């Protein structure tokens, strides 16, 4: 069983993980949606077709998606230091988390937009809608259930990423599992941190599925 000290530590680590998750999740969504929209709209045959811009954004997204996360953390440490002032702790960990998750989420947004019925977009054009109105009133509301599923997938991925960030001193449940559980041969700590992570994943997935189903009127 866990000692009292370990229990408070577990609570602290959980709060740290939730903090990392909340902050990086929020910024990933804020950055990823416009990026996904740009990826989609600049593609061939779309409203803002621009093959040069599309290729540039696509390349950046693919590069960042290809770098294994654990390496990304180390690679962008100088940037993290510039932004946060340190490379250790949960706030510092959000920088690689955001950079790692945004391209991933942007691709999910792009896919969600691609699924929107072209006929509905054509109807909006026939009514004299401008590009902004088509994005705001057609693409986003019509794709919202898929985007929400994308947010769920991204948050679950971020839990995994945040655990990895723990390895290099990011704090949170991953950090606790590695430093106090694995490295100190403390099996109860190892298991209980894993269990809390598991609960988090199940809860987020459940909530995400529930909301997506609720807003989907198709």
């Amino acid at each position, binding site marked *: 069983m866990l000692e009292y000290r370990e229990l408070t530590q577990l609570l602290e680590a959980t709060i740290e993980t939730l903090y990392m998750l909340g902050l990086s999740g929020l910024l990933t969504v804020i950055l990823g949606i416009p990026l996904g929209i740009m990826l989609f709209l600049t593609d061939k045959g779309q409203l803002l077709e621009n093959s040069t811009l599309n290729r540039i954004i696509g390349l950046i997204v693919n590069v960042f998606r290809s770098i294994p996360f654990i390496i990304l953390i180390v690679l962008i440490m100088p940037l993290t230091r510039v932004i946060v002032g340190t490379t250790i702790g949960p706030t510092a960990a959000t920088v690689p988390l955001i950079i790692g998750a945004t391209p991933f989420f942007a691709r999910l947004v792009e896919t969600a937009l691609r699924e929107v019925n072209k*006929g*509905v977009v054509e109807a*909006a054009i*026939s009514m004299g809608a401008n590009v902004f*109105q088509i994005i705001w009133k057609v693409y986003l*509301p*019509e794709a919202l259930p898929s985007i929400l599923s994308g947010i769920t997938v991204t948050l679950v991925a971020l839990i995994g990423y945040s655990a990895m960030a723990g390895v290099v001193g990011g704090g949170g449940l991953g950090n606790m599992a590695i430093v106090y559980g694995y490295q100190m041969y403390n099996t109860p700590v190892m298991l209980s941190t894993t269990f809390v992570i598991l609960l988090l994943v199940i809860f987020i997935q459940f909530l995400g599925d529930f909301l997506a189903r609720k807003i989907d009127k198709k």
Partner: protein
Amino acid sequence: MIKLNNVQKIYDNNKQRVTALKNINLEIKSGEIYGIIGYSGAGKSTLIRLINMLENPTAGEIWVNGQRMDRLNNEKLRLARQKIGMIFQNFNLLSSRTVRQNIAFPLEIAGYPKEKIDKRVSELIKLVGLTERADAYPSELSGGQKQRVGIARALANNPEVLLSDEATSALDPKTTESILNLLWEINRKFGITIILITHEMHVIKKICHRVAVIDGGEIVEEGPVTEVFGNPKKEITKEFVKQVPVLSGND
């Protein structure tokens, strides 16, 4: 009202050139219901999309209400489109919006204040007979009800022209009847010019004043419905004439 002068449309993919329309000349009078009939691939869908510039002509002139559509800048084209309603075979309603919100959509686009939108939407819902279903989502409606929403939406901005792209092709015969009756009523009540494309002879016979038969990207016969089909000259027109008894069995 609507005039197409020597309109041509060529699709130029890297590999091949496809001539969808060649040398189309058409004049549609104000208040008329004008039918364009042809088999799929004849170019009728391209033709109707040229009128509101969902497609650009390769050559020729497109006039709607004294405006040269193919010469308008983006802003002017958007304003012109707000005065041209369009309905579709697959309805193309927003699945995330209720009946009421779908009908409000073009009014939001045009930037009307909320009170005005609400008032107009209520009128339209009544006009198309969907008062009971105002807060339903499209997925909860039948095909005929969906097309009624489509019609209400297309009429929201008080357009002078209504384009109908195979609007009854996805509906059963009985529902087709009721939608055609609604279009007929709208034409008479508001004097809206209706241009419809179809492959069903029955639709032409039922509500159109004049008709153009299109084949291989060309208009092969044109004139008042009774004349064109009373005395068909071209083989394709004769084929359409033969369709009638089969498709209008419940007349």
